[in-house]
């Protein structure tokens, strides 16, 4: 890990889930930095671990409970009905009459949660035009209002990760970078340019993704993307990652044209197509007689 602990200490303990106390005493990062971890400290760490277990129990409850509450409050009957209507018009063919899924066409939507709906519909991936290796992002079919209604309908059937709200970029930038390189860069490239996966599948570029889309993608793990639940990457950490992605995507390149920011392949192309061509032009011209 490259983030130093002062940094993780600086994060506000806003989410009472898996014992933030651990972070200051038991992290190998701290150990790596100081390069000495005394036995005494280890004992303290054990105690802290116990405390953490207790806090965690509370944390688990507190993360689940609000979700239920929100769900109950939001599902006003009108939205629910409108959502069901949209579902029956656009989704039912592949996902079945009761969201149970249709074999070979679409998965069950029971318990996938509003986050998944938001991601799939808001990026235009759903409704799918045709069955393929991977659903591509397309122009959005539904209006924001319709999407909200659809979310209400799906969320009411089995719950699941809900769509978050508020500022999704207020996390720590450097921590976000570290987490991005550890968890996301392996598929989405160093700064979210996207990359190829096996047999025609791909990790899409994150350039045009808005905050909520990235957040809901992490939360729901669409298609082949692994799921990053809130107990794996805290909401705070997710917001850090989003902050990093959006900051780096939006910042200008200090050294000239970014040529896709994909590294040596683009650079090799440029040296041959631009550099060598320019010089070849030069040496042909040098041979000209006046």
């Amino acid at each position, binding site marked *: 890990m490259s983030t130093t602990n002062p940094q993780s200490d600086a994060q506000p303990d806003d989410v009472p889930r898996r014992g933030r106390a651990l972070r200051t005493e038991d992290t*190998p990062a701290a150990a790596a930095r100081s390069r000495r971890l005394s036995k005494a400290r280890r004992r303290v760490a054990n105690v802290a671990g116990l405390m953490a277990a207790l806090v965690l129990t509370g944390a688990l409850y507190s993360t689940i409970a609000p979700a239920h509450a929100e769900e109950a409050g939001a599902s006003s009957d009108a939205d629910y009905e409108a959502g069901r209507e949209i579902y029956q018009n656009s989704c039912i063919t592949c996902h079945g009459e009761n969201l149970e899924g249709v074999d070979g066409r679409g998965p069950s939507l029971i318990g996938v949660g509003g986050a998944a709906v938001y991601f799939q519909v808001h990026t235009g991936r759903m409704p799918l035009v045709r069955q393929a290796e991977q659903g591509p992002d397309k122009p959005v079919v539904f209006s924001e209002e319709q999407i909200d209604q659809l979310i209400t309908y799906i969320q009411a059937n089995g719950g699941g990760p809900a769509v978050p709200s508020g500022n999704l970029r207020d996390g720590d930038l450097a921590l976000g970078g570290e987490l991005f390189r550890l968890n996301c860069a392996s598929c989405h490239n160093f700064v979210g340019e996207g990359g190829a996966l096996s047999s025609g599948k791909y990790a899409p570029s994150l350039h045009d993704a808005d905050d909520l889309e990235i957040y809901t993608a992490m939360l729901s793990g669409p298609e082949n993307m692994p799921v990053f639940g809130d107990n794996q990457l805290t909401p705070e950490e997710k917001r850090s990652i989003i902050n990093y992605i959006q900051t780096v995507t939006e910042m200008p390149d200090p050294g000239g044209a970014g040529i896709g920011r994909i590294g040596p392949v683009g650079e090799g192309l440029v040296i041959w197509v631009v550099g060598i061509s320019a010089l070849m032009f030069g040496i042909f011209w040098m041979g000209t007689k006046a």
Partner: protein
Amino acid sequence: MTTHDTRPGSAGGADTPGPLHGGPDDDYTPEQLAAMSRDDLDRLGARYDGVQVLHVDPGPEPGSALERRYVRQVGAVFMLAGLAAFAFVVVYVGSGWFLPDWEWTIDAGTWSSLFTPLLGLLMGLSLTLVGVGMVLYSKKLLPHETAVQDKHDGSHFDRVTTGATLVSGLHKSGLARRKLITRSLAFMGGGLGLMLLMPLGGLLKNPNTGNPLGRTSWAQGVRLLRDDGTPIRPGDQVPGSLETVFPAVTGGNRESDAATMLIRLRPEQVAVDRPREGQADFGYGDYVAYSKICTHAGCPVSLYEQETSRILCPCHQSQFDITQGAKPIFGPATRALPQLPLALDDEGYFVARSDYIEAVGPTYWNRERI
């Protein structure tokens, strides 16, 4: 002889230069040379170098309109080159003084992201124009001459005389006869060569001492920690997720071979899961843990496709199927990713049951034996 002794011929005999051997100075007296024009001298010297100027296409007539035009062209190019060079100086020096600050930050103004491009553009322009000016000058204003230079084959005379000198020197040394000396020389040469190479031995280190290649920090009871140092409970991950975990030892998250992928399988994956022989109990519930270090070239593999259960290595595209014991199914990798045996400790956190039972990372000569 002392340094004060400046008399000629102090070593005996007259101190006069020896005769010159057929050099050009014998062929041409200074008077003759002085009488020749500069062009003739140039041609004469060239002839001594085996060069003959065949044809000269003189440059534009001095004072002609054509010459004036070319001079203007070349002059303008050099002028522009100088202008660009001075502009470079202005941008370099002036940024942060009378121009906006050059220091680039993620949210700094436009100037700072134009600073490097401007430097490159101006320096590139200036240098390219200098080059263009020089070439233009040679093309338009210099006379074009076509010269032919002779190529000499090796001289038979030189070969014979040099050979004689070498062989006679060798002969006089008597090395061919004095076998003892040649042999001792050979012996000495070998010893000396080896001796000089010996200090390189300092580079050698026994790779088998303590088996650093075959071991990681994982051991029985070592907790699985996240990158931020927190331990993990079975409830923390949702099905279809992957998390990179490290051993709970000092510097564990910096260790090159210890990084491990903790994967929670989806029920569909559990249904088809076929662990490797003898490793059926390495997982814990629907959790499995595999080494993140590719068995091919050591890159971290973690392009996890949760629907196809594949792990893809971004370096050489080896693909591993985690429902088949992370066996390679495509690409250049030959071995499955080693699996870490999992258990829970008293507090309900994931721990390793032991180290990996095989060497982690790229294959090498005696890997199987470690």
